[in-house]
């Protein structure tokens, strides 16, 4: 089921490096000097409570909000000053928190738009149907008629309609039923087999603890912890200190 893997790129250099990134939204100073490295390959998790700045961080990487200071390096290239379409064309796909599926368009049309380099790759679509069978069923339905979980599948499928180097996913489990979360876990496991790097923002620790290779924890606009996911999973004290009750209460 997995795609053919390309030769492994220079593994040493991180795919994405943020250094000293500040973002202001209006008069609010949201990101207050973020330093973050996302290694090439695998799945990096970004945890943090509500309002920590996780969504702002993703939007800043995507160029939807301009950083007021700092640098964003992607694949050896500074992208901090680029416009959103150019950042997307550099190889970053984005699944926003709101999912932002085009509800007037059918599932197929949503996917067609995501395939900006040509026609839809049939084999790839079949591969996606493999872990999101609902999309095959509703292929010709307006995406607005789908349930929340199905919309999330459309949003993720759209981001991977063509191979991209980096996938930014913002809280995919928010508001979804456990059964659907299970199918998302399966999908991310499948995606991890490809050479797409994933940066997954979550509050739901139980969802990501089996998926993540690395983890960073964000609070008050800064990264307060970064390391291997295994170390955080094994260390109850660290969990308690970093994630506290606010995360435990989420399942």
């Amino acid at each position: 089921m997995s795609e053919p893997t390309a030769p492994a790129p220079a593994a040493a250099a991180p795919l994405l490096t943020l250094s000293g990134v500040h973002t202001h939204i209006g008069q609010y100073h949201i990101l207050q000097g973020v330093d973050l490295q996302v290694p090439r390959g695998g799945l990096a998790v970004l945890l943090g409570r509500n309002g920590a700045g996780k969504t702002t961080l993703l939007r800043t990487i995507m160029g939807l909000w301009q950083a007021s200071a700092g640098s964003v390096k992607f694949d050896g290239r500074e992208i901090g000053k680029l416009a959103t379409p150019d950042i997307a064309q550099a190889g970053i796909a984005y699944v926003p928190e709101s999912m932002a599926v085009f509800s007037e368009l059918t599932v197929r049309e949503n996917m067609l738009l995501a395939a900006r380099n040509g026609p839809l790759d049939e084999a790839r679509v079949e591969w996606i149907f493999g872990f999101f069978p609902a999309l095959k069923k509703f292929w010709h339905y307006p995406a607005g008629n789908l349930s929340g979980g199905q919309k999330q599948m459309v949003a993720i499928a759209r981001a991977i309609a063509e191979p991209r180097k980096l996938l930014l996913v913002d809280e995919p489990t928010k508001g979804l039923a456990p059964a659907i979360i299970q199918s998302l876990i399966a999908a991310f496991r499948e995606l991890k087999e490809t050479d797409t790097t994933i940066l997954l923002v979550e509050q739901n620790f139980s969802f990501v603890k089996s998926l993540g290779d690395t983890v960073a924890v964000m609070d008050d606009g800064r990264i307060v912890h970064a390391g291997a996911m295994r170390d955080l999973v094994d260390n109850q004290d660290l969990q308690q200190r970093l994630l506290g009750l606010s995360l435990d209460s989420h399942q």
Partner: protein
Amino acid sequence: MTSLVPPPMPQARTPVSALGPDTALPAAKRDIAPLLLVPVLMLAMLPFVGSFPTWVTLTVAGLAMGMMIFIMSSGLTLVFGLMDVLNFGHGAFVAVGAYAATMVLLPMHGWLEADSLLMNLAVLALAMLVAMFVTGLLGWAFERIIIMPVYGQHLKQILITMGGMIVAEQLIIVVWGADQVPLPLPTSLRGAIVLGDAAIEKYRLVAVVVGLLVFAAMFLVLNRTKIGLLIRAGVENREMVEALGYRIRRLFVAVFAAGSALAGLGGVMWGFYKETLTASMGSEIMVMIFIVIIIGGLGSVGGCFIGALLMALVTNYVGFLEPKVALVSNILLMIGVLMWRPAGLFSNARR
């Protein structure tokens, strides 16, 4: 309205039922109620009008007028839907289009007066193409010079586009003079054909045909091409279109120019309908255009089409039945529609 803080991606997260991903097919909801309004209105008016031939004449007149208004307003609704730009200067393209057509029609008046349908239609088509070219170019310049600096600022957009409209009107007077320009119909399109007892003006049939062609072309482009997909997606959520890697600015300039060209085409047709041109024709028709795109739902081409037909039909029926009420009939129609659907017949998901 715009605020300091860019809003998060619109579209509310729908609450999710506990149902799994593969449960029942969602009902394919097709919103047909607004589509039925036009035929229902037409049939409902038959007993009031009383005589069938009169009803046919009024209905065709309404449809023809509606098609012309649709052509003029369709571009504006897309411009608003796609980029949230309020262009109060859209009427300028209508007037400029009509005047630009005279650059063809006056030198070639021999062809207009010739007693040959083919020659008449050829010169008409040429005039329309020239008008569309001139207004398309003007629209492109208008977007670059006037709209671009006031991006995202509604109040300034209103002021500067109204200013642009006034300048355009005065420029028309400078170039073509302040006098009314008579625009007689081509010979073979004058008069009416009589079907039974009903008289149908030939030019109105032409207007209906052109209107249907424009609507069909827009429908095909919007639904069958990638550009159309991008426009529909952009009307719903332009930020996400950019996040998928498309430069929506370029798309917008193209849509703006195409919308201006359509306004120019509508201007030529409206000029022939009125058989005279005045420099202020653009600002006069602007009120109707705004009512139509509000009735239709800002950003919706289908809504604009139905709104234009409804408004024109109501104008014609009321003008015949109660001429004194005709002046307010458009406003009453708008109030009625908005009480039923406050965001217009087809509101797009964005707001």
